[in-house]
Structure formats: structure tokens, C-alpha cells
């Protein structure tokens, strides 16, 4: 295991942890089924890219067509990425969150994600269409040579700082009165609003917070892989992150972290180790070309389904918050979306 692969896994883990924490805030704590989540990560990545890249007329970049190109130094692109995620949440939230019941919200957000991907792919001058943005500068690449091990350690450290920051913010939210209001709204929206909580304002706020954090995760990822194309943020990516949050245990930050380590990092990377040759009874059996890669995906699907079947409450279920003197009730059932009209 060399430094770069370790760095790759750690940075991806960090990015996915941050994304899952954001998703947990939106979904686990507040009950918003944000099926367009990946768009906000993409917005952050694109924003960070166009803020840090030179203009497309610059030497070496002429093969691409994109807006922006301000060549801002780190950390401005990352801040810009986080802001972009937050800003995008506003119109999306205003339209979808206010008026729709949750299952309609879910499918509408899913379609939003598809629309965004199609538009960016086809509107080439905006963000270079299907080819995406390449040669994205890495943070502090002029100060530290990106070809060295030190740069990998630096990037891991940077990611870790962001993870800690996001964890801190997420914990504060979950354990605050705001967090309690969010959970009340998630569990019994009608009762919560009877108590004077404004579900729309609550939802918008957490949606934007989630968007900001998602944008940050995008900025971190694009700084590492130096390329961002529509193929990276297709709608199934959102579902994978949801799987992570569910598998890890919704509603609590630790669950989100565990889920991030298990699903996008664990399942997807462990399956790469499926051997391409077997030794059976002394014979080397080589499966047909392409079979093992295809089976890797089948394995990922089976792992997800397996976890959902055998441990639907997640690896670390949400702890019940019990207060002194309160009657102890069994775990609340999964939120069922029931048609009432």
C-alpha cells in the first residue's frame, strides 16, 4: 500500500464523510429526502474549479470552454465552492420544499438532478459540456510540489481539518434546540407546527446548511482528482450516499461517518480486490474478460441489499434521547409516507 493509494482512500473517505454528514442533516435529522444531493456537491466542485483555473484562453487550457477562470489562490476556491452549494439550495429549496409532500418532493428532486446533469452536458460553453473541466489546479500547488509525498500528507491533513470542522458544526446542530426542532418536525410535522415551529423555515435553513457542506465536499474532491465531468455526478451517486446514511444509521452523525466508510469507500473499493484469477485444484481459472468488473458491481448491489435486509436500523442506530421522568417507549417505527387524500 503506497502513500498515494492511502491518500486516495483517506481523501475519498473524508469527502464522503462530509457529504454524508450533510445528507444526514438534511435527511436523517430533518426528514428531507433530497434526491438531488449530488447536484450540490457538483456545484461546489464546478465553482471551486472555475475559481481556481486560469481563463480558458490561457495557454494549455484552450481546448476547454468555460465561464470564470479567475485563478484565485487557495482557500478562496473552496470557500466559493461551499457558497455555491449554499446559493444553489435557495431556489431549489424555495420551489420544492415549500409546497410538496415528501414523496413528491423526492421524485421531483430526483428529476432536478437529471435535468441539471443534462443541461450542463449539452450547454457546452458554460462548463465545457460532457468533457468537463480538466487540469484543475490543486490547492497550494505552487508552494508544495504535488508530485511529492508531502503534498499527499498535506491534502490528507487539509481534508481532515474540514472533516473535523463539519463534524463540529453538525454536532452542534444535532445537539442544539435547533436540532431538536428539526427532529420534532421530522417525526411529527403537524405537532411541531402546533407548537409554533415553522417547518418551512426550518427546512430551508437546514437545506441551505446541507448545501454549503455538500459544496465544500465537491471542492475538496475536485482539488484532488483535478477533473470534473457530468459522468461523475449522475443521479445514482445520490442514491449511493443515501445508502451510506441508511447503512450507517440515520439521524446521528456517527452513523453517517460509519456509513460513508462502509458504502462509497468500503463496498466500492473492497470489490476491486476480487481476484481476476482463481486457483482451483491446481488449475488457474481465468474468467472471461469483463466478468470480474461486472461482478464487482453485482457485489456492491448485494452488499447494499444485504445490509438493508439484515440491519435496517443501520450499524449505529439513532440513539433515543431519553429525558428524566419521560416514559420509555420502544424505538419509533420508520417514517411511513402514507397517502391521506
Amino acid at each position, binding site marked *: 500500500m503506497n502513500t498515494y493509494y492511502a491518500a486516495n482512500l483517506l481523501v475519498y473517505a473524508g469527502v464522503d464523510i462530509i457529504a454524508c454528514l450533510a445528507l444526514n442533516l438534511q435527511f436523517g435529522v430533518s426528514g428531507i429526502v433530497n434526491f438531488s444531493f449530488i447536484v450540490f456537491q457538483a456545484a461546489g466542485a464546478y465553482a471551486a474549479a472555475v475559481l481556481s483555473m486560469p481563463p480558458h484562453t490561457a495557454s494549455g487550457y484552450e481546448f476547454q470552454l468555460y465561464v470564470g477562470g479567475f485563478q484565485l489562490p487557495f482557500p478562496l476556491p473552496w470557500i466559493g465552492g461551499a457558497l455555491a452549494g449554499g446559493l444553489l439550495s435557495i431556489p431549489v429549496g424555495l420551489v420544492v420544499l415549500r409546497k410538496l409532500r415528501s414523496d413528491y418532493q423526492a421524485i421531483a428532486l430526483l428529476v432536478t438532478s437529471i435535468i441539471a446533469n443534462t443541461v450542463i452536458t449539452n450547454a457546452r460553453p458554460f462548463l465545457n459540456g460532457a468533457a468537463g473541466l480538466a487540469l484543475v489546479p490543486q490547492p497550494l500547488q505552487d508552494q508544495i510540489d504535488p508530485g511529492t509525498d508531502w503534498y499527499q500528507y498535506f491534502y490528507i491533513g487539509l481534508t481532515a481539518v474540514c472533516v473535523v470542522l463539519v463534524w463540529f458544526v453538525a454536532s452542534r446542530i444535532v445537539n442544539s434546540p435547533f436540532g431538536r426542532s428539526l427532529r420534532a418536525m421530522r417525526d411529527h410535522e403537524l405537532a411541531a407546527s402546533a407548537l409554533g415551529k415553522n417547518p418551512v423555515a426550518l427546512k430551508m435553513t437546514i437545506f441551505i446548511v446541507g448545501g454549503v457542506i455538500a459544496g465544500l465536499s465537491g471542492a475538496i474532491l475536485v482539488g484532488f482528482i483535478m477533473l470534473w465531468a457530468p459522468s461523475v455526478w449522475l443521479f445514482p451517486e445520490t442514491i449511493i450516499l443515501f445508502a451510506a446514511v441508511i447503512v450507517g444509521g440515520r439521524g446521528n452523525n456517527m452513523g453517517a461517518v460509519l456509513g460513508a466508510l462502509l458504502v462509497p469507500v468500503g463496498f466500492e473499493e473492497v470489490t476491486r480486490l476480487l481476484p481476476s484469477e482463481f486457483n482451483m485444484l491446481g488449475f488457474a481459472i481465468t474468467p472471461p474478460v469483463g466478468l470480474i468488473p461486472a461482478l464487482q*458491481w453485482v457485489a456492491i*448491489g448485494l452488499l447494499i441489499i444485504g445490509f438493508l435486509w439484515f440491519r435496517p436500523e443501520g450499524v449505529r442506530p439513532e440513539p433515543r434521547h431519553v429525558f428524566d421522568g419521560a416514559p420509555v417507549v420502544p424505538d419509533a417505527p420508520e417514517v411511513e409516507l402514507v397517502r391521506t387524500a
Partner: protein
Amino acid sequence: MSLFAAAFGFGLVSMSVIALAAVGFTMQFGITNMINLAYGEVMISSAYVAYYINRAGISIWIGMIAGAAFGAVFSFLLNRIVYAPFQRKGTSLLGMVIVSLAVSLMIANLLLPIVSYNSVSYHQSSGGLLRVGGIILTANQIVIIGVAVVVMLGIHGLLTYTRLGKAMRATAANPTLARNCGIPTKRVVDAVWLITGALCGLAGVVAALNSDSFAIASGAGFLITALAAAVLGGAGQPYGAMIGAVIIGMVTELSAASFSPEYKDVVAFGILVLVMVLRPQGLLAKRGALAAAG
């Protein structure tokens, strides 16, 4: 040849293809509350079944029926073996979506080693060209439009006039109440999966026939168009899906005729965005889609 007249004709074909897929998808959502992300893969599997039949020398129209039958059985089994057990366990809507995505990954990647990544085409002469006032359509395309019209009328008939159809509508509106009224919801759900599965299979063969050459990777695109049309019309509303299909199919082709064709999807989805902003529940959604005020 007026490009617009031709585009109108193509729009008729597009909307027929999309309608078949979208209605099936939306009925699955409306009655069983499943956002079935494996829908596109079932479509493409059925298209391949028809391909193998066609390759054995049999006409594609027979293949179409075979594809529909395969889609029906496949979807029925999918529900019985995977979806229903999870739903019985109390899995939420979200959990079911994740399950359906996992299933779609598995179907696509189990199919890949079997049929391989190559594109294939059906062997069917496209029939004569019909030219009417600027519209140009092949005989096959006219048959496709015909099939779609017949099927839509059939769905309308099913929902309006048959007991099963009324039971479906009741189950969609309120499953608990429906059960209390003596409707055998479990059997209704089975019937829904068979019927929408048949639609799915049929839509897959038709879409494959329409595109002259297809491969496994086409499945994702089929799902996306069905999803978009379904949401445009109001998720869960079969008539809404038909309208959504008409709009997307027609707008796509007409805008390809008016502006640069590479933006045709952008325009179609732009319409969708507009509708979602103005009427987020979709064009025909019932009032219940809206949350309680405040």
C-alpha cells in the same frame, strides 16, 4: 419538405415511445409507492429478449409480444422476491428506492457478460415511407404510434371500466381504506406489477426498435425519459404521464427543428423546470400531493 412538419411527425413517434414507458412507471409509483429505478433495466432486458427471438428469424412484432410477456413476468417476480418482502418489513420509501437502485446495478451487470457491450439492431425492414404534407414516417413508425394509441386506450378502459382498474385507483388513493373496503390489495398489487411490467417490456422493445441500434447502456436513458414525463404529468397519474410524454416528445423534436438540435434535451427539460416551478406537483396531480399549509 418543411422541417417543422417532419419534426411534428417525429414528435408523434417520440411521444408514443415515451408514453408507453412513462405510464407504466408512473402506475408503479402511484399504486405501490415504488420509485422503481430498475425500470430502465427491465426495459432493456425485454428489448434483448425480443432481439434474440428476432435473430432466430421471427418477426419483431412477435418479439414485441414476447418482450411484453417477459417484462410482465420479470417485474412480477422482482416484486414478489425483492420489493414486497422489503415493504412487508416496513422499509420506507427511501429504503425501497435504494433497493431498486441496487437491483438495477445488479441487472445491468449480470446482463453485461451475457449479451456483451456491443450495440445490436433488430432485423426488420422499416417498411415504406409515408409522406403526408411534409410529415415523413415509415410504416414501422406508424405501427408504433398505433400500438401506443391502442395501449393508452386500453389503460384508460382498464382504469375506468373494469373492477380491477377501479380497485387499482382505490389502492392508489388509500391502501388501508381500500383493504378495509374488501379490496384484495395484495392481488391488486400483483396485477399492477404484471400489467406495468408488460408495459415496461413493450416500451423497451418499442424504444429499441425506434432507435435503430441499442446496447445495455441505453437502459439508463430510457429510465430518465420515463421519469421526466411521469413527473411532468404528476407522479402517479397515468393520464398525466401520457400528457407528459406528449409534451416532452413533441417539444424535443420541435425544438430540434427550431434551434440547434444539441439543445433539444435542454429545451424539453427547461419546460419541465418551468412546470416544476409553477406547479411542482406536476400537471395533473391531485390536491393531496400538496403538503398541509404552513
